[in-house]
């Protein structure tokens, strides 16, 4: 019946989801003019990468019940989350500073060093 079609969830499927998140993030970074939008793109990219690490490190998804990456996948993902938080804090501080000086968050206006 209908629900029987659902028997999919392998490492590859997780990778595809990660790839979609990653691509969306890249577009977001490239297209958005709002500095905060660019930041959100970065978060999406990091998340797509994280999903890959988790999928590779998961014993549950591995075909033979033991993933090659083991605990390392989760540890790397953990560090990525931590560093993403740090990066967001600093980037936000820079954005606020930029806003204080230029009264805008348009990244195209950040051309003071342009000769």
């Amino acid at each position, binding site marked *: 019946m209908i629900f029987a079609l659902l028997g999919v*969830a392998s490492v*590859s499927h997780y990778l595809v989801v990660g790839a979609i998140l990653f691509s969306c993030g890249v577009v977001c970074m490239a297209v958005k003019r709002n500095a905060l939008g660019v930041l959100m793109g970065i*978060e999406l990219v990091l998340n797509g990468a994280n999903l890959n690490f988790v999928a590779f490190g*998961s014993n549950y998804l591995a075909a033979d019940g033991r993933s090659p990456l083991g605990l390392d996948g989760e540890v790397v*993902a953990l560090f990525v989350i931590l*560093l993403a938080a740090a990066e967001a804090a600093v980037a936000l501080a820079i954005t606020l500073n930029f806003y204080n000086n230029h009264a805008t968050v348009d990244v195209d206006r950040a051309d003071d060093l342009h000769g």
Partner: protein
Amino acid sequence: MNQASFGIPVSLFASVTIDWHGFFFLLFAAIACISALMVVLSDNVVRMALHLVLSLGATAGLFFLAGAEFLGAMQLMIYVGGTLVLLVFGVMLTAQTQLVSLRTPAGDRVIASILAAALLAVLVQAAFSIESWQKPGQGMVSAPTATPLGMALVGVRVDQHAEEGLLEPKGGYLLPFEIVSVHLLVVLIGAAYLARAKRRRVPRPVDLVASVDSVEPTFSGNSDTTVSGGSE
């Protein structure tokens, strides 16, 4: 499976089995992908933040599904609860009008999406290129990973001990852990330094004064005046 003793409607469904893992995987994956797309497509920053929350939350669900409970909770707490609230906070601090939208020229969008489609194609092709990745998992529920993870961060790989019978403590992730913690401390100080209000030195554009001044005194500290008044 027993036959339906209740009779009529139950036996209709008796042949159905649901792969719950697949079901929830599809659900969360759909939410994550669609919200990620909406982040790209919407112009309003706050809506982008909302969709990002949905996307990251669904990713946390995927983490839970993959058996990484600790990481899922971490994602919810740090990413969704911390980072995104911070982002929205930034949006509010920098919003000039009610609904901020900086539009992008359509040409840029087209180029970016062509590039992204190419990237996506490569990644998807790579994802399906190795055969062992495509086999669905055996559904073996392993021991919870929170404890081994915590032990690994302080330098003891419990998981490897159990497997290889090692007695010597093997170097885990103590050094990266220390580096990250020092890094976070540096970031904390640096961000506070960067974002502090420098009202005296830097003259502001006149149009800003009204909107910023009403907000900033509440957040920029100034606690020296008011520490003991009401709280004692």
